[in-house]
């Protein structure tokens, strides 16, 4: 009985250790090496029987304000995007949860449908829509609403639009799962006891959907902080997000040790706000 349960758990854990933990160890190893003109482009951990470790890459991160700005930039974009997805996603999820059952699956399908196309292609499609001679500007010009093209891309607006667009389903699905579970009799009981519709929302529906809100926030915020495709393609050169800087260090500068140190630093720094947020949300729920 116990050995069977152990076997059931051991297999996925072995998988995680192999493909999640060991790359992490490798990244930590690279982050304490020096840059080198070699293949791979860093110094080995053991050389001539001696351990070779440096903190130079981490010190570089502290000394160059670019990294700090990129870190805060990522947190800021991710936080604003998370709030926006919550504000858009909540009414959407609530609406779907209150639709007759036969329509619900169709509406949920529509939320999941974008996943059937490659994420990259969808982001490129946004470039086609937003660029100076893109579809949106073209349409607005031709109906005469504007006379000069709007700057819709390479700015905060396009980055946030991209983030909200890409992560909205991750907010809607946990919210829907939570709201769908709520007993409609609770709303009726509140109304019966004299609560108006808005009061019912604040006193009953919202408090009871907090676990869904917490799940949605975590599912959107964490990947949004590390996002690099959206800031790279929809943000201009001035858009500072840590994921984009990391990508540049790795693939443009070929500085693997600095990139690895950045990745580890990001992991540690992300764990901090996430831990705080989890405690906060658990406190409310």
């Amino acid at each position, binding site marked *: 009985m116990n050995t069977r349960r152990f076997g059931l758990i051991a297999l996925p854990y072995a998988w995680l250790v192999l493909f999640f933990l060991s790359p992490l160890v490798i990244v930590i190893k690279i982050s304490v090496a020096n840059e080198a003109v070699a293949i791979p482009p860093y110094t080995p951990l053991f050389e001539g029987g001696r351990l070779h470790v440096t903190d130079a890459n981490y010190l570089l991160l502290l000394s160059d304000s670019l990294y700090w700005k990129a870190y805060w930039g990522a947190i800021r974009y991710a936080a604003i995007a998370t709030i926006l997805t919550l504000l858009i996603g909540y009414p959407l999820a609530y609406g779907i949860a209150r639709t007759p059952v036969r329509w619900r699956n169709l509406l949920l399908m529509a939320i999941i449908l974008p996943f059937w196309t490659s994420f990259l292609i969808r982001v490129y499609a946004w470039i086609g829509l937003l660029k100076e001679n893109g579809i949106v500007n073209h349409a607005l010009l031709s109906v005469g609403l504007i006379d000069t093209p709007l700057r819709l891309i390479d700015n905060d607006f396009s980055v946030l639009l991209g983030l909200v667009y890409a992560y909205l389903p991750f907010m809607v699905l946990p919210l829907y799962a939570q709201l769908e579970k709520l007993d409609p009799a609770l709303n*009726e009981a509140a109304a019966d*006891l004299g609560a*108006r519709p808005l009061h019912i929302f604040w006193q009953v529906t919202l408090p009871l959907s907090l676990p869904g809100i917490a799940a949605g926030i975590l599912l959107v915020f964490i990947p949004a902080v590390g996002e690099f495709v959206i800031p790279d393609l929809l943000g201009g050169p001035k858009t500072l997000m840590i994921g984009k800087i990391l990508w540049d260090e790795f693939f443009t500068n070929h500085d693997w040790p600095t990139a690895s140190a950045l990745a580890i630093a990001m992991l540690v720094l992300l764990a901090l706000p996430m831990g705080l947020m989890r405690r906060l949300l658990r406190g409310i729920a």
Partner: protein
Amino acid sequence: MQIERLTKRFEPDAQPAVNNVSLAIDRQEFFALLGPSGCGKTTLLRLIAGFETADTGVIAIDGADMAGVPPYRRPVNIMFQNYALFPHMNVARNVGFGLRQERKPRGAVDARVVALLELVKMRALAARRPGQLSGGERQRVALARALAKEPKLLLLDEPLTALDRKLREEMRFELKHIHQRVGITFLMVTHDQEEAMSMASRLAVMNEGRIEQEGSPEHVYENPANRFVAGFLGAVNLFEGKVAGAEAGLLIVDSEAGRLAVAHSPLAAGTAVAVAIRPEKLRFMTARDTTTPNVLPGIVRTIAYRGEASTCQIELASGQLVRGTMSNGDGKAPVFLPGAALSLSFTPDAARLLQS
């Protein structure tokens, strides 16, 4: 409360869930709506609470027409079948919910909550969440919450169904007791005829959206208006037959079980009727005893022992199975075992005549 010609259809062409119902409930009455599931009694309750809108008809409470009045403005509170307690609030906050909506001062709310929790004997558990309570405790909280605003009318949707049998019987007395103490009109919906009869001062039997009969439990039980009411409210034995004539002030019916005499006003000979007799009104006699009228010989088939009495199935000579109640109490009445031959008898005024 006054209901006049109320009708509600959920689908345009479907059978109405509530069909032309008229009902008047007096102040401080304990009224029960009794019927099988799907008979429209819960829909009627939801119409009164304001969760559903009637197609036609009027609901008036204390003379005020409730048409267009939203649930949160009606002087009515409901205790839901599954209680619908707010899981994120403790017992005291659940009970105080309605009072807080009126923005009453905190001290007044707290004092009232304490008084209500005393009433339902839940004061010790005021800080618990609904998830930490047993079914019976939740029921008490739901009752206190529904009473908090002193509604003109308290609606109870199957109030005892979710409880186990022993608790249910205790709660019957307690609900009655609380009803007397608070002086609020109670309207209870139930499918349990025992519950309705033991608690209500008046009841109405519903079937297929209509009210079949209305009156005190004793009146409806003793004088059922039709076959449905007779069969739904308690057990009944029916003998189908035709009126044969009158004899010595009694109506004579030729039935499948033989010639029966019933105390009833004269009817035209040949009228199709059913003689209805409750199991507890059948007397058990040894087979030899044939001195009384309305004697039905038969054989005991099965006996279900219930403690204070036994319910027996007796096969008559005609093959019909009838139900009788055999007392186990005094030790004087004859006791029969399965397979024993016996005679059942009843007095002419114990039986009722049903025409519809």
